[in-house]
């Protein structure tokens, strides 16, 4: 345990420091970075899901005025490493998924590039493919580990025996669909080669991540790759790692004679290139006494992966920390398919997994005749159920109780399908939420005293719209004991010191800890009278308390749902989230993260579904007209609050990551409210009008 920073700037609702630049359109996003004399790139994508390219006729494209070149697997520069097959771009004739890059056109304008790309003729030898997740697939296998190294399977006690002996059981299968991240800013990059190596202006959640991932692919030393990403228009995980478009731009730039190459994916292209949340099939078995106390808890997950790159969504991760039960089983199996490569999407694991668990808990409450909040309170875990570690702090029950008070839960009649207003059935639902406190290693902060009395704080971190510019400035101010005006933060560039990826809600913990360590080192080295130009660097320290405590944020999600009696239309007029996430660095940007996550959870509950047509291996609703994301009219009163939580173990700020917890449990709360409204239990997302029609 370290002493927490004395909060002065921390806890203040500072307005976004990057706000004026963004609303005046002067914050340069990746594609807008001024570069001289660029070429433009447009890809040709495979129209088969599996097979080989047998011939490419690019003569018509090459003959077009303004075309600088056509890249194919026959002429593209060779890459150095095929370790990551997602990034092995234009290196062979193999086609591993529909939409894979098979060629690209470099041209003087985007219009010429796009038209010329449509003139490239590609012939294929097509092979049979599989693109549909199936619970009965013969190819199911257990991965060695899940996304972040979590164990694939965990077993405790005798689940089957406990289920057989249980007074009450729930045994249901829940599914979540493929979902695409769809940040507002498409994935975009500008690539330029010169004698020093490769420079990328990129839309990414981690400039250094792009550097260290791509350097070996191009056979470069990481120091030969510069990545610049000061402003990013959302990522939701899909910009956490570089994807094939980065490599394609790098290859094209190498053939561009030193000219920069600009490349922005279209919305449609993002559906096959930029990653997505894989669909899941989850069987949940609960055994409990008549008092609702769990004796057995099992979650067996079957989920999609891609054949060329394993992706093991840690779907059961949330269940492992949520509720006490002596007999437990959590397993994962992957179905590897001929599909684009999945990736992180806001709260990978917890988001789909807690949908299933929290609907199952609602079913348990109904089966026991207990209030769903009471069931959760009775099963609150005093220690982390699998590790046995005590919690650094856990305030799930406080969140549930405070939410119940504010939401008006005590007046709730549990009977489903009986409240009706002007043709609408009304119900309310609750679900728990959780997300871990991650600290990624390796970030380095540099602090330097400038001549004007300000401190330059440099770290190659990312702000993907979350408020990093502002919140890290607040952390640095308190770490240095100065007002925010005396902090000159620099982020978003590999020319700045190493920083971990903006992922796993780990940014403030990881980068903030490095800044606090640097400030401490600065004081240790220079005392209270540092000279101008005084400078230190320090790395994110290990947290010795991490071995002694389980560290998670918790929350409670409440939703009111209306379902139209005649049409089945479903609306969510009201949502409330109550979170316990340590100390809140900036209430304004934190609230934005919470309600943003909840809104995305609402969208997941009612709308989001990438429709995979297995005949083609194609997500057919690949644009924002057909892939529905909640529109303003779908979003009612969404409110988020938090309870004061003191946690001296997580990091020197006392904060827990908040970027993802807002989405966790939100869809379950909506599903549970829909059940309360109608008496119809929907176990498959999204919850659409047809579910309520007979």
């Amino acid at each position: 345990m370290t002493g927490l920073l004395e909060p002065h700037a921390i806890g203040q609702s500072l307005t976004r420091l990057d706000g004026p630049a963004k609303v005046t359109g002067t914050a340069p996003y990746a594609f807008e970075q001024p570069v001289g004399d660029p070429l433009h790139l447009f890809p040709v994508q495979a129209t088969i899901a599996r097979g080989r390219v047998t011939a490419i006729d690019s003569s018509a494209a090459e003959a077009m005025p303004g075309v600088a070149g056509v890249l194919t697997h026959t002429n593209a520069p060779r890459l150095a490493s095929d370790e990551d097959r997602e990034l092995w771009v234009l290196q062979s004739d193999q086609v591993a998924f529909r939409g894979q890059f098979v060629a690209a056109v470099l041209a003087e304008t985007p219009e010429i590039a796009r038209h010329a790309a449509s003139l490239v003729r590609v012939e294929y030898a097509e092979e049979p493919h599989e693109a549909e997740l199936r619970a009965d697939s013969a190819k199911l296998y257990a991965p060695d580990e899940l996304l972040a190294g979590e164990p694939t399977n965990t077993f405790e006690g005798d689940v089957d025996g406990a289920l057989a002996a249980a007074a009450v059981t729930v045994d249901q299968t829940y599914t979540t669909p493929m979902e695409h991240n769809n940040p507002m800013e498409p994935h975009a990059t500008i690539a330029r080669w010169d004698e020093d190596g490769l420079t990328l202006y990129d839309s990414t959640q981690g400039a250094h991540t792009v550097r260290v991932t791509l350097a070996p692919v191009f056979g470069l030393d990481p120091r030969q790759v510069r990545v610049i990403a000061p402003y990013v228009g959302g990522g939701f995980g899909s910009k956490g790692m570089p994807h094939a478009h980065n490599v394609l731009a790098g290859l094209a730039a190498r053939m561009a004679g030193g000219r920069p190459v600009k490349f922005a994916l279209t919305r449609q292209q993002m559906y096959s290139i930029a990653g997505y949340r894989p669909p899941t099939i989850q069987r949940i078995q609960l055994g409990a006494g008549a008092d609702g106390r769990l004796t057995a808890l099992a979650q067996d997950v079957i989920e999609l992966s891609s054949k060329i790159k394993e992706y093991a969504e840690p779907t059961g991760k949330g269940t492992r920390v949520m509720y006490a039960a002596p007999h437990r089983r959590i397993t994962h199996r992957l179905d590897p398919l001929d599909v684009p490569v999945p990736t992180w999407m806001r709260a990978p694991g917890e988001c789909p997994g807690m949908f299933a668990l929290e609907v199952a808990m609602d079913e348990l409450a109904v089966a026991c005749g207990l209030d769903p909040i009471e069931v959760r309170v009775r099963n609150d875990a005093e220690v982390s159920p699998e590790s046995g570690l005590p919690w650094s702090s856990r305030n799930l029950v406080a969140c549930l109780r405070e939410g119940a008070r504010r939401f008006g839960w005590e007046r709730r009649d549990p009977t489903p399908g009986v409240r009706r207003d002007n043709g609408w059935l009304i119900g309310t639902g609750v679900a728990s939420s959780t997300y871990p406190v991650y600290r990624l290693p390796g970030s380095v902060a540099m602090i330097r005293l400038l001549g004007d009395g300000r401190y330059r704080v440099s770290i190659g971190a990312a702000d993907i719209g979350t408020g990093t510019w502002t919140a890290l400035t607040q952390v640095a101010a308190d770490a240095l004991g100065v007002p925010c005006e005396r902090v000159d933060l620099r982020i978003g560039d590999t020319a700045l010191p190493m920083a971990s990826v903006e992922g796993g809600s780990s940014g403030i913990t990881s980068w903030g800890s490095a800044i606090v360590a640097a400030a401490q080192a600065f004081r240790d080295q220079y005392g209270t009278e540092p000279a101008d130009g005084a400078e230190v660097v320090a790395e994110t320290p290990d947290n010795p308390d991490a071995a002694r405590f389980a560290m998670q944020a918790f929350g409670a999600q409440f939703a009111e749902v209306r379902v139209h009696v005649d049409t089945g239309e479903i609306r969510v007029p009201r949502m409330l989230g109550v979170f316990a996430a340590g100390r809140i660095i900036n209430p304004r940007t934190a609230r934005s993260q919470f309600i943003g996550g909840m809104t995305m959870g609402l969208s997941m509950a009612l709308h989001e579904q990438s429709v995979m047509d297995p005949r083609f291996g194609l997500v057919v609703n690949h644009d924002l007209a057909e892939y529905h994301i909640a529109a303003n009219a779908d979003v009612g009163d969404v409110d988020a609050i938090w309870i004061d939580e003191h946690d001296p173990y997580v990091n020197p700020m006392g904060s827990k990551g908040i970027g993802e917890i807002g989405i966790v449990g939100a869809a379950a709360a909506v599903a549970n409210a829909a059940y309360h409204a109608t008496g119809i239990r929907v176990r498959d997302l999204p919850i659409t009008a047809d579910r309520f029609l007979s």
Partner: protein
Amino acid sequence: MIPFEYLRAEDAASAVAAVASRPTAAFLGAGTNLVDHMKLGVASPELLVDVSRLPFDEVEPLPGGGVRIGAAVRNSDLAADPILRSRYPAVSRALLAGASAQLRNLATTGGNLLQRTRCVYFQDVTTPCNKREPGSGCSAIDGYTRYHAILGASSACVATHPSDLAVALTALDATVVVLGVHGERQIPLADFYRLPGDDPHRDTVLEHGELIIAVDLPDLPFAARSTYRKVRDRASYAFALVSVAAALDVADGSVRDARVAFGGVAHKPWRATRAEEVLRGAPISDESFLQAAEAELAGARPLAGNEFKVPMARNTLVAVLRELAQEEAR
């Protein structure tokens, strides 16, 4: 998108001549659908003749009590038009149920009627589609059918027409006024759209080079009691799963006359003449309304995956008729 020429039409006749004389020419209204299709490769006109500035931007009374809507009247202007709002509220409501505010500010009346289907396979040139590429096959029939037809489809095409406005206009007996190289002709909207049959390539009976210059609504006093109800997966900015436009004339506890059309269920706005027949003279009751709906939907042939549209269309029509009957009773 292929390179194309752009011509701003000076007058309607020259616009028609310019398009009619060139098979690869197309009229350009606001372009909210056509330009998307050009980017996607779904449409490849070599000449765009911009008709959005032709003087067809007014809503005018017609002799005999009807109303003429200029083809270039923007959707948002038409929705706000006091005559439409008071005498044909179904039209105004249909417009406001469509697209987004930004699109409505731009989109024209004629262009709205000529929107093409939102079938995902039609919009993706890498998948077979008989409407886009005759003879290539229909990907939707065994594919993603949520937004597809339950009435009037063929083995060649199961697409639906996406317009909301056209559904309301179809219900209210509108007529399309068309200018071609041989002069003007008037086409009842009910005859304007085609069913797919063996030739889903063509959405309407328009000949190449024919330009919509106006839409006429007849005098229909009971259309003042009309409405439009759109059921969709998202509260706004989504195409209809099912929609209903209806007008009801009620006297002495029974239906004197009715106009009904469905949207989202067929290759064209579906005028529900069977339902109207059942309604005429029927007592005002949920039972009558249900009989009307079932009479119309008896011919429904849903696809695997859109069976829900039959009860949804039935329930929505009953709910709309109930609401109109109650409105009349006030």
